[in-house]
């Protein structure tokens, strides 16, 4: 696919000591809106806080510049988005690369470290930086309120910290703050050279950095290019706190994306030409005709929904991950597939196609006529609905919804328990085992690997992708069983130790 025909993309950069968790569900929301998202794990992250001590601001900048250059020419539009320190990196990237292929979104940029909860001794940092050996050894801890105003969410984050989950570093070396201070100085100099439209989202009650930071960016970029959204019910982690919906809405609007799931998806401008729509439909119908319904996930947004009518074993709205198991079940019941497609009718991004659902088993044969409705946006399938002319035919063929399978329920429960236990292991497994755990979990949870393989600079992301892709074709049940067994083995080793 040429860059011009490719969908829009967004490059998301996480914050200091953090992971993609910092950005909440922004990846998913952008994907749902038809954008391709890219991210990277910044140098010194994704391992242990000690690794941050030897990382310089320039290494972070080089990493994001490298990733940017890798993806820049693959899309007609590329938006830059960063959270906290990630927003400083995004701003520097925009300035250094003279970014004009999309917008810049700065979420809670810490241009000034002057929030209401910052401790009094923050001004002593420059003095401490000069004491030999100290910056690398001094630990700066993360503490209540953890950047989160929502108390229930804060309790969850606190519990994660106490369990030692690796979603965010519990502390960072002072040296690392020195590098952030250097980044802040670079951004202050560079801000006036940023030329792309910029959105700054900042919470009034941000405990780490006050609104002064957002004001600085908007005033310095100026020229009608920058605008600001002030949040009234969040602290620093705005993508996960009380105002996360407002953040998502403003970001999606700013990048000109649709708002799927908000009741507007079907009426949206699809951002696809008539030829693209026809081509996308052709692929979808071919897969349905071949009985490969499960592969539609590759063509769809993460929250893709298939709505099937009637009161039978395959009825209901099957959303996101649940679509995978529905498709498996659907195919298994008499080799069910759609065929005999009629002439499609297009209306903006919505297509209605007459079709027939056929299936057969030893004792019966089904030929149910009706129409399939598909909604597309930016090259992705948003939603599919089957309107059967006589859904009672399907009820008779597929039978009543099955009673819960005790073995399956037990396996689900064991998997959930193992996933919880894996987070509470007192000894961190080695990297190979961690990758194995990750791959098994993803295979059980999301099925075969999807998305592009991360670039060489994203070492951690690439290793995870590779581990997951090795399990391609392994069934969900088998992945769950193997995951449960592996966690059991690790727990057993702890007991023995």
């Amino acid at each position, binding site marked *: 696919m040429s860059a011009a025909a490719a969908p829009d993309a967004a490059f998301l950069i996480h914050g200091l000591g953090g992971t993609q968790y910092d950005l909440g569900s922004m990846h998913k929301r952008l994907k749902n809106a038809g954008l391709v998202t890219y991210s990277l794990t910044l140098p010194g992250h994704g391992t242990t806080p000690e690794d941050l001590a030897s990382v310089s601001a320039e290494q972070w900048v080089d990493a994001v510049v490298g990733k940017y250059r890798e993806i820049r020419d693959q899309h007609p539009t590329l938006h830059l988005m960063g959270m906290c320190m990630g927003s400083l990196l995004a701003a520097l990237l925009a300035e250094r690369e003279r970014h004009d292929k999309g917008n810049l979104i700065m979420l809670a940029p810490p241009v000034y470290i002057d929030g209401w909860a910052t*401790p009094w001794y923050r001004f002593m940092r420059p003095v401490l930086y000069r004491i030999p050996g100290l910056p690398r050894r001094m*630990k700066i801890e993360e*503490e209540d309120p953890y950047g989160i105003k929502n108390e*229930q969410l804060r*309790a969850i984050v606190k519990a994660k910290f106490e369990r030692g989950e690796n979603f965010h570093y519990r502390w960072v070396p002072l040296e690392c703050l020195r590098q952030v201070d250097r980044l802040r100085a670079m951004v202050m100099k560079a801000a006036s050279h940023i030329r792309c439209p910029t959105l700054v989202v900042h919470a009034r009650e941000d*405990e780490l950095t006050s609104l002064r930071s957002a004001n600085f960016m908007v005033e310095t970029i100026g020229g009608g290019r920058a605008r600001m959204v002030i949040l009234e019910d969040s602290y620093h982690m705005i993508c996960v706190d009380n105002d996360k919906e407002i953040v998502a809405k403003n970001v999606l609007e700013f990048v000109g994306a649709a708002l799927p799931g908000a009741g507007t998806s079907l009426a949206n401008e699809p951002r696809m030409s008539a030829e693209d729509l026809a081509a996308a439909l052709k692929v979808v119908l071919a897969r349905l005709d071949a009985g490969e319904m499960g592969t539609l996930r590759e063509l769809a947004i993460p929250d893709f929904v298939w709505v099937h009518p009637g009161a039978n074993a395959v009825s209901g709205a099957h959303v996101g991950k649940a679509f995978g198991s529905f498709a498996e079940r659907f195919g298994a019941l008499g080799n069910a597939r759609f065929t005999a497609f009629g002439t499609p009718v297009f209306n903006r991004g919505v297509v209605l196609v007459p079709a027939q659902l056929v299936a057969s088993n030893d004792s019966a044969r089904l030929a149910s006529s009706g129409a399939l409705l598909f909604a597309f946006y930016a090259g992705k399938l948003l939603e599919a609905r089957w309107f059967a002319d006589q859904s009672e035919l399907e009820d008779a063929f597929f039978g009543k919804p099955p009673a819960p399978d005790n073995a399956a329920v037990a396996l689900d429960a064991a998997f959930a328990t193992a996933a919880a236990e894996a987070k509470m292991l007192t000894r961190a497994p080695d990297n190979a085992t961690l990758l194995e755990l990750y791959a098994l979990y993803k295979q059980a949870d999301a099925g075969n690997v999807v998305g592009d393989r991360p670039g060489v600079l994203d070492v951690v992301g690439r290793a995870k992708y590779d581990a997951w892709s090795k399990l391609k074709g392994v069934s969900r049940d088998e992945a769950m069983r193997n995951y449960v067994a592996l966690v059991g083995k690790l727990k057993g080793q702890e007991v023995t130790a």
Partner: protein
Amino acid sequence: MHGWHAASVFVATAKGGISLGKVKTIFVVAAAYLLLSAVSAYFAYSDQDAWGVWLASGFGLGLLFVRPRADWMPVLAGAFLGALIVEPLVGSSLVDTLGYALIEVIVTFAGGAVAAMISPPPIRFTSPRDVGAVVAGAFVLALTGAVIVGLWGELAGAPDAWRTFRVWFAGNFVGMLLVAPFIAAWAQFRPKRSGGLTMSSFAGGAVACALFLICVSVLFATHPERSMLQSFADDLTYLPFVFFVVVALLWGTRGATLAALIGAMIAIAQTVRGLGPFIDGGGLLSDAALNAQGYAAALAMTGLLVATLVEAQRVAAWRAREWKTRFEAAIGAHGMIAYEWAPESGQLVVSGDTTDLIGVPAQKLATLADWLACVAPQDRNAVAERFGERGTGGAADIMRYAMSGPAGISTVVDEARAIHDHDGALHRIVGIVRTTAITA
């Protein structure tokens, strides 16, 4: 029993071997002992050969307050080493040096052990019990040392063993109250990215601290032959306490112990030089230095107590908030609302995510009328009537009615129970409301 336990700890620790960390602790404690001994010497009465305040033992005792018993050995070894170095410098013989070094270990251990029995380490200054442990630890350390040294003097035929006992006890007790909590509080300091003492609190505390130190300095700079202004300063002997309490309120334990240490040092240093309000004596302890020591002890204990009570309040509020969060998470996860209705006053207190379920924040549901306004019009009269019956009868009651919410009209099940007072009279109606279906 405790002695046996202590001995077993010593043996167990000794068996653990010496690591680099332990060696570092030994030398740090010994170095601190030397430094604090030098500072204490500055406050000594040169003419009477007596210590105004003995600070050196406080470092070790402070570390015992925050370390588990298994880690006490290097601290005690450091105190022993420190005393071995200091004593010859002040003219003690070899036997006396060994004796004082041994006493140092015994009294530090005794103080730490007593404190640990009252409040197990680490002492975090989050309850008055912690303050009690610190005061008791300081008291036992001072008393044990004073008794041993007094008896030693008596047995050796030294003149005025009672005076030795008194000076030792007072100097040590005050010194421990000043240094040990300071060390314990600051040993637990961890720099943070966010959280802790904010700039506004720091600034307020700094102003109060400056006023406190200025007051103490002026007060203890008065000469026995007073001018009128100095006599006026005498009348304000306890004014520094006002500012000191503000310091403790704003800066917490760390700030309070720091300010107390500096303020007390000024008071004692000036007093031993013949200045300050206590110099013409006549007080309860009939000695200017003792009065100054009492003043310092009062400062230290006041600061600790105020800061600890503030911290205890903060911890209590935090626990209450955690409990509330857990409660709301539990009922929220089940899609429930809890209410408490006082029939007599008509007041209603509602908990849970009412915004999600009925589209109105809980704060706006302050009376039964507010609640009824959310009930669907067709059920409103019936619900009002049933609440009236609940308010008079007080029996358990379940009713189903429709409420308007953000997702449309929903059917709810409202289960109420009565709470009666000791006389059996109706006190409150409490209820749980569950959404069962969105009907329109």
